[in-house]
Every structure is written in structure tokens, then in C-alpha cells.
């Protein structure tokens, strides 16, 4: 009953008052259980050609190591259906009007002669330019960083698993950006 009264009040307000001017809400965010699910969903949705972006969550739902996916609201149903079909549905979808945190998009390159290092945010990836073998992974503070290093170091860029496939955190995602930049430059 209380919920119904609340909705009635909203409708009354809508009839009697002009809609307040405000930012246009045409984007929504998909919130997932964990970062691994975000990374998986991003890959699926990008492959399908959706106009989506991986962003930082608004302050009220931050826990510490989070990503969300920003989607066009008009495509909400199709996107949700796609994710349901692959067994990777979000926990919830929330419309957004305020700006979201932008992931870092600056890369720094350091050429050591035989070796090349690329840094994205707090993550660094270094390869041997002659063999394209990954010789070091450094930086970062999330627990998948030592795991990613263990799985990637000593393998060539083409053989090594991508951080997107085996990483689970924001540091893993930053390493993915460094990895993509390295592939672009090599």
C-alpha cells in the first residue's frame, strides 16, 4: 500500500508539475557480481557490436576494485537478453545521468634497447623486442598480478594468455590495456 501511495504521488506530481530540467538520461550501467564477469560481458558485447564502455562505478556502489559497463538504455533489453543467453547476466541495471569515472587512457613507453616496456595506469609490461617474449610484468596491487606474471612471463605475445582471459581485477584490466598497446606497437 505504501509503495502504491508513493507511485500515486509521483504520477500526481508528473501531472501538475513540468518535468525539471536535468541531464538527459540515455545511458545505463550494468552492475555485476565481480570484475571477471564485467570483463567477460565486455568481450561478448563488443563482439556483438554494441556501443558500450567499461567505466568506474558511481560512489554509492563502490567497494574497492570495481568496474561497470555503460550501455545505451535504448538497447537494454537486447543487451540483457544477450548476456542471459551466455549465462553472464548482470546483478542489476541502473540509469545514470552523472559522469562516471574514466579508466586511464594514457600509455607510457620506455625503450631499453633490446627490451620495450609499456605502462598503463599502475601496470607495466616488458618484452624482448627480438623474440616478442614477455620478460617481466610489474606494478599493481591486486592479487591477480603475481598470478598474471606467473602465467605470462616467459611466453611470447602470441602464446601468452591475455590478461582479459585470466585476470579478474582492475590491475588485470590495466595490464590488458598495456598488452593491447604492446601488440599494437609490435
Amino acid at each position: 500500500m505504501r509503495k502504491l501511495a508513493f507511485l500515486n504521488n509521483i504520477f500526481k506530481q508528473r501531472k501538475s508539475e513540468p518535468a525539471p530540467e536535468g541531464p538527459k538520461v540515455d545511458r545505463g550501467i550494468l552492475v555485476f557480481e565481480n570484475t571477471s564477469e564485467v570483463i567477460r560481458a565486455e568481450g561478448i558485447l563488443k563482439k556483438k557490436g554494441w556501443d558500450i564502455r567499461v567505466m568506474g562505478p558511481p560512489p554509492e556502489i563502490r567497494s574497492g576494485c570495481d568496474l561497470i559497463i555503460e550501455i545505451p538504455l535504448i538497447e537494454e533489453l537486447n543487451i540483457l537478453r544477450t548476456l542471459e543467453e551466455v549465462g553472464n547476466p548482470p546483478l542489476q541495471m541502473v540509469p545514470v545521468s552523472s559522469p562516471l569515472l574514466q579508466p586511464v587512457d594514457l600509455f607510457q613507453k620506455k625503450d631499453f634497447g633490446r627490451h620495450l616496456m609499456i605502462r598503463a595506469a599502475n601496470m607495466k609490461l616488458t618484452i624482448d623486442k627480438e623474440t616478442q617474449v614477455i620478460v617481466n610484468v610489474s606494478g599493481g596491487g591486486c592479487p591477480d598480478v603475481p598470478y598474471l606474471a606467473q602465467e605470462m612471463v616467459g611466453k611470447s605475445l602470441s602464446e601468452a594468455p591475455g590478461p582479459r582471459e585470466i585476470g579478474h581485477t582492475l590491475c588485470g584490466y590495466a595490464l590488458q590495456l598495456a598488452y593491447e598497446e604492446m601488440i599494437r606497437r609490435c
Partner: protein
Amino acid sequence: MLAIIGTVPDQDFPLAAGEVVLVNNEIYIEGKKVSVNRGTPALLASAIKTCEVLDIPGPFGYLVGDIGHGDGSRSLYEHLTRVLGKCNYHTIAFHYLQPDADWHNRVLFAVEEMAQRPVLIADAGFMYAAKMSGRSCEYDLFTPDIGELAFLADEEAPHPFYTRGFILHEENRVPDLISRAYSHRNAARCLLVKGEKDYVADSEGIRTVVDHPSEEAMEAMGGTGDTVTGIASALIDSGMPVHDAAVAAVRANRIAGSYAKPTPATQVKEIVEHIPGALEEILHKEERISEQIRA
């Protein structure tokens, strides 16, 4: 005694709490072993080497397997909330843990229950959680690299991944970034900033800059920051003031690095081997200076 808390990159590694020993590039805890290459095992190995040189008891470790899902970290957080309040440590170093502001605060409450407040050190994921929780000031030492310093300086960023572009993490911006981190109360009492030059600072500004010996290749090597934090933790546990321990740690790490003659492909275990020699060099030099002053 020194407690070191972190994770290892093995999903099946169970929660272990006990004394840690180092044998041939592997650390052992409660009968389980893990390779020293980077992350918390590298921090532990460097702390053990430092404790041996100082002839003090080695660290007590709290370790769990976590490859980024966060489940291992959460089980360790939960364990710490139950046991820390009854423990008696002089120094605690928190390291690779899934950043989680809520669990961080619960662990800090457990620390507050300890009979004597320990010296608190945070690096890696736990430092991210400390900053995000707005409780950085309760720590005695943070050990960020320059990218992480930019994150501490950005009052809006909940993780280094979201550091805003105008807060550039460039070597020549370090004094500004340190000042900004302190002005927003996002720094520990002492900051050890690891980079081309190492900076030791407090709320009054930069106290010490160490830039030699210099091995450019160390920037690319995973784990060199972990070894600095490990050496500093053990020196602090020996009773050395935090600032002095931070300066001695970066000096020792640089000397150990130069002994290893590294390339960007060198692995950190090669540096760990040289830590005792580097520390002996620094400590003997200080002894000689003290003797000269007395004479």
C-alpha cells in the same frame, strides 16, 4: 615481532598462519611452499634476509591463495578480524590483498583491539583499500611507486586505474603529488616513493632523496618494490625509526640491484640473494661513520 599479510598466486593454497622460512628461493609456511618471484613471497623473502642480517626473529606470515577472485583475500580478512586483536606484534606489513574498503575497516578495528598499537605498513592492494577508506593517516608507512603516488594524490580515484589524466605520474611531479596526497589526508605518516629516484617524505615535505646506485632496468622488473617494502618492514621491526628504515631500505635495494647487474628480463629472486651483502655494506658504513664521530 613482524607480521606480514598477503596472498600467493595459487588458487588451492589454503589459509596459513605461522613462522616463515626461506630455503633455496622458496618460502615455507606450515609445511607448504611457494616460489619467491614477486608479490608477497618476494616481500617475505627480503624481510627474512634482513632479519638474518640483523639477527632478529623472522616474520610471522598470514598467507592465502588468491588469483584475483577475491575469495582468498576475504577469508584472510575474516581470519584477521578474529585473531589480530589478541596478537602482539611490533610491526605489521599488509600487502597483496583484494582491495575492499569494508573489510579493510574491520581489520583496522581488530588492530585497535591489540594491547599495544603496532607500527602499520601498507603496500599494494591493502594500501589502495586504506586510501579508499579515508583512513590513510592511521598508517605509519606507505610504499607506493610513482603511479600509485598519483592515485594517492587524486582525492577522487578509488583505484590507480581511475587516476585522472591531469594528475600525471611523472618523475618531475613527485613533490607536487606528495604535497597533494598529504593535503587530502591520503598519505601515511611517512611515504616511501619508489622510482627512478626514491623519495622519503612526511607531511612537512620531502626528507630524503636517494638516486644511486641507479639501475634503469629495475623499473621493468616485477617485485623490486616488494623487496624494498620487505627490507623496510624488517628494519622497522628491529626498532629503527620509520624514516631511517625507509632510507636504508631503498639504499640496500639499489645496492642489491647493482650487484645483480640486471637487465629488464632479470627476475627479482636474483636481487633477493644480494640483500644481505647490500645491508652489510650500509650498516658497516654507518658504524664506521658513528665511530669516526665518536673519535
